[in-house]
């Protein structure tokens, strides 16, 4: 009985093996047709997308073709010394700023002093690199004014930190691109009191742009703009709205490569 089963099994196995082999043989003997010529493809223009109304007008200005334009808008350009009115305090006076700033520091109880000094230290060298620091000038002026005290460097540093902490996770730069190491983009954004962007962020300036990398620099700048759009609204202290209603954010992937 078992022998018969085994025989039947072996018979079936043989038939299957034979079938498989003959199929395989037939398959491998199929004449090969020559591979097709490439199917041709032609490029054509297609229907215009109507101008999208949803986006505010600024979006058109932000079209990144202008990336290479080095000129910064007037509002962000450092004031020329000779255009400053006569009465503005002479430059030496700006050196008093850090001293004056110490007074409010003592009142700010909940703030972690050590961290703050770090922030200030970080912020200071950067501001020194600018030809003439507008914010410092404003502080100076304010210090001279009777009521003053709305702009102060530590608050500014804290706000900058808050913006950085919220925007960086939204920024997805094209890492590994041809020229990523040497590229930065400065974006100007205006915010409403609830932290939402007003309009579309504008590209102020960009470094690392060459004739050969126009497409890449455009894509790079757009990732920065997209980061701000995605992160909106930012959560920032409304009390200090004057400090952050307008921001210039420099995107530099130096720590990523």
């Amino acid at each position, binding site marked *: 009985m078992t022998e018969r089963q085994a025989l039947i099994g072996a018979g079936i196995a043989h038939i299957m093996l034979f079938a498989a082999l003959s199929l395989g043989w037939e398959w491998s003997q199929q004449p*090969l047709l020559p591979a097709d010529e490439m199917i041709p*493809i032609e*490029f054509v223009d297609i229907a215009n997308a109507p101008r999208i109304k949803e986006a505010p007008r600024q979006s058109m200005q932000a079209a990144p073709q202008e990336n290479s334009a080095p000129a910064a808008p007037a509002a962000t350009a450092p004031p020329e010394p000779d255009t400053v009115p006569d009465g503005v305090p002479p430059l030496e006076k700006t050196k008093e700023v850090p001293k004056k700033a110490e007074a409010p520091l003592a009142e700010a109880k909940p703030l972690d002093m050590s961290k703050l000094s770090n922030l200030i230290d970080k912020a200071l060298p950067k501001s020194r690199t600018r030809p003439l620091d507008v914010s410092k000038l404003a502080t100076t002026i304010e210090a001279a*004014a009777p009521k003053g005290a709305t702009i102060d460097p530590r608050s500014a540093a804290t706000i900058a930190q808050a*913006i950085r902490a919220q925007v960086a996770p939204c920024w997805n730069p094209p890492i590994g691109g041809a020229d990523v190491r040497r590229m930065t983009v400065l974006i100007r954004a205006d915010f409403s009191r609830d932290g939402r962007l007003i309009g579309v962020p504008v590209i102020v300036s960009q470094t690392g742009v060459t004739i050969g990398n126009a497409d890449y620099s455009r894509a790079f700048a*757009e990732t920065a703009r*997209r980061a701000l*759009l995605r992160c909106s609204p930012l959560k920032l202290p409304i009390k200090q709205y004057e400090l952050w209603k307008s921001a210039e954010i420099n995107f530099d992937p130096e720590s990523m490569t």
Partner: protein
Amino acid sequence: MRVLFIAAMLVATPALAAPIRVDINSGIAQPLPVAVPGFAATAVQSTEAGSTAELGGRIAQVIANDLKSSGLFRPIDPQAYTTTVGAADVTRPQFANWRTIAAQALVTGNVTVNADGNITVGCYAYDVFSAEELTRQGFVTTAAGWRRAAHKCADLVYSRLTGESGYFDSRIVYVSETGPRTRRIKRLAVMDQDGAGHRFLTQGQNLVLTPRFAPNQQTITYMSFEGNRPRVWLYTLGSGRQQAIGEFPNMSFAPRFSPDGSNLIFSMAVGGNTDVYRMDIATRRLSRLTTQPGIDTAPSYSPDGSRIVFESDRGGSQQLYIMAADGTGQQRISFGEGRAATPVWSPRGDLIAFTRLGGGRFSIGVMRPDGGGERLLTNAYQDEGPTWSPNGRVILFFRSARGGPVDLWSVDLSGQNERKVPTPLDGSDPAWSPLLP
């Protein structure tokens, strides 16, 4: 007093409300979430490749797969879409619907049957958060050519969002392998970059090795043992014609085209010395480029055709060397630990990919043409035979498992995004075509 007055005025002037300055020095490196809904059929019509509605769905899938395979995009699962795309939405997308699923880019389009039976595939890309159109292009092809239209659309989107040229509308030629180690059957095979449209070019009676595309993508050069005489051959796609490049008495191998397609460079063994030769394809005139004792092989042109990188054991072990296209100025460029073989110049010109042999392993590495900046991109048991994507961002190679299968794999230039390329059988010796026209 006057000072104070002016200062107070200035504070009140909005122009002086200087924007706060923020420096962002790092972001996240994550694939970009992109929505690729089925392309709309302007009118549901049937074609030889299916209805326009079906084509629209398949085109979107091919685009999504292409983008995903790059590792730079994350197509969102269509199940999450809150809306489909009708014909009117293609040029007027409902951005709010795409924002809710956190898509950052939207790729959409339409399929139209033309009067002559061809199809036009319209391809549109949008930035979802700024609600802006990024790019658009129409592609006219036969209904059977819908895949090429989809790859072209994916290339358009890739290049617009990354700023680099695409590589999806391209093909791969490789050696398909089957059978036991001792009686391996090797056949030339060609397929689209994504594995579609696979077909065998040779029957497998003769062993074939190292197929390489001509710049026009219509000719393939390879080495075949036909008639037990290992020689360099040419295969013409379309006609299927195969011809040996010459009746050399000696073994010729490791062929490659020059960037302008007019010359072949390859190795030939003459009198116990293997050197690199160049052949003018039109005149069949042969020039010898190297003369040193030892094996000089695996030559590859720089993209401008001015230089050649090759491997040689003239110094005692396999290393990479560079010379001018006429054979002058030969100079060793690889000095790291172990040996270096099978160099291939990047289509961008800035890097050379090669196989690093050492420590019982083969790995894929890249270095600059001056030999600096060496990096290993893979770390497996045996990875070899690199070939570049047309944009120089991805490297394809073959990986042999210990006593196991041999497969095609890809890795990007940063060493990330390792992927197995699907082939029906085992695969080795891949070569990537240039971007198709």
